[in-house]
């Protein structure tokens, strides 16, 4: 309990210090260069009242979810296959390893030519920026499944499919979850990136705000994005804990 209290006290203290430095720096530099928190807060209330920020955000997140969902549906089985089958590993992993280090930003202009500037572009960019992380994390999990646990399943007479569903998959589950959380962060970043290129949605909003003389709206939009990212990431973690109560507890005790 005192540990928790200490975390809260020092956490808010750190938060306060940063806000204070920001406020001082912001007042020195002025709104045009670096708006202080007081100005951003006023702007924030304004943006929420106008309603455009949240409306655009909801719209953008919906498209992000489509791309991210597709990345999970493709990336997870791909990673598991690479981790469990030498053939799949040899065929797919060189490509996955190459794409994971490729900057998504360089792909956007290319895909604008192919897909235009609408729904398909945004979903594709989100998909391409997150699927490799999801696949590689699943791959590492699949490779790490204990051969002894597989042997236990076989010892009790489990067939290949039973072993996969009842042992391999549950053993990989924590990695699938971690992969999804890493993938989600990349998906949200890619969403904004793609939208800034074609000036649409929430990224478009940020882009247009960046052209103004006042930096307060840009900073307000950034803060909202940070909060939403953290919130979604936390939600995914919570879902994981509910689905696999043994996992988090195990990490804490061992």
């Amino acid at each position: 309990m005192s540990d928790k209290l200490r975390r809260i006290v020092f956490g808010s203290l750190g938060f306060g210090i940063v806000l204070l430095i920001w406020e001082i720096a912001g007042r020195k530099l002025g709104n045009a260069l670096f708006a202080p928190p007081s100005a951003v807060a006023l702007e924030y209330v304004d943006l929420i009242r106008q309603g455009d920020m949240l409306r655009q955000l909801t719209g953008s997140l919906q498209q992000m979810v489509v791309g991210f969902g597709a990345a999970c549906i493709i990336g997870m089985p791909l990673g598991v296959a690479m981790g469990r089958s030498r053939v799949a590993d040899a065929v797919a992993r060189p490509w996955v390893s190459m794409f994971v280090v490729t900057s998504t930003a360089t792909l956007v202009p290319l895909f604008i030519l192919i897909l235009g500037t609408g729904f398909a572009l945004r979903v594709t960019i989100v998909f391409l920026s997150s699927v490799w992380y999801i696949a590689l994390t699943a791959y590492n999990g699949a490779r790490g499944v204990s051969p002894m646990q597989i042997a236990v399943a076989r010892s009790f007479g489990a067939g290949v499919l039973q072993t996969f569903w009842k042992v391999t998959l549950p053993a990989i589950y924590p990695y699938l979850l971690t992969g999804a959380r890493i993938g989600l962060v990349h998906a949200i970043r890619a969403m904004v990136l793609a939208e800034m290129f074609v000036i649409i949605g929430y990224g478009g909003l940020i882009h247009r705000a960046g052209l103004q003389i006042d930096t307060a709206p840009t900073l307000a939009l950034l803060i909202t994005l940070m909060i939403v990212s953290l919130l979604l990431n936390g939600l995914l973690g919570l879902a994981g804990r509910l689905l696999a109560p043994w996992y988090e507890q195990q990490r804490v005790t061992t």
Partner: protein
Amino acid sequence: MTLAELTSRAAAAAPNPSTKLAIRDVTKIYRRGGKELTVLENFSLDIAELEFLVLLGPSGCGKSTLLRIIDGIETCNIGQVILDGKDVTNTTGDGRGMVFQSFELFPWRTVLANVAFGLEVNGVGKAERLAIAQEYVDLVGLSGFENSYPHELSGGMQQRVGIARALAIKPSVLLMDEPYGALDVQTRDLLQDELLNIWEKQRKTVIFVTHSIEEALYLADRIVVMTPRPGRIEQIIDVPFPRPRRDTLKSTPEFLEMRRSIWSTLRKGAHV
């Protein structure tokens, strides 16, 4: 009592009617990087119905490999494993229940679901398998921990789950691979007594692997002493102590004398 009187040499004779499990000329060769390592060579042994047999030997003598071959999770290059007259070489299942040294419980399953695992993969319906699992959870003294996860239990309790999981499939033969090797001495002694209690209640053919002479003498009807490279039978010892056995047996002169003589046999083997 001299050791010679208690000792009889292994004889791979024709299977006699009381033979539960026959191991015939089993050879296991590991190939790693072009090198060959013969772990077992022409190993033969008959295990009688309801016998408690202990495979005893130093690490590297192939006793665990032999047990894994009997279970079928390891394949042998040559030879046969015949259980209840049926050739079960290089297959798993068929009434073999295995208890593993490092427990190997599934961390995502509760105690009850772990115990029910063998029944589940063999197609036993949910209500039935959970009822049977509960029976065995009770038998190993874990009532009240059905819904705990393995990481919430001590090592001794985890191995009780491992034993319940193997017993729940009502195995024709129970295979135990150094089941107490990862536990402290007190827990080990306690679990030996519990195992003997369970065994008195539900007699079964047991093959138990250990490197502890004391454990072997305390539990076994018959001890197969093995020596390494390649693993072969050094001697077979009939353990004369009556059952039920109690912990006090371990400090009797007869027990200590047998322990000493087995130790000198093993030490001789270690010099070879």
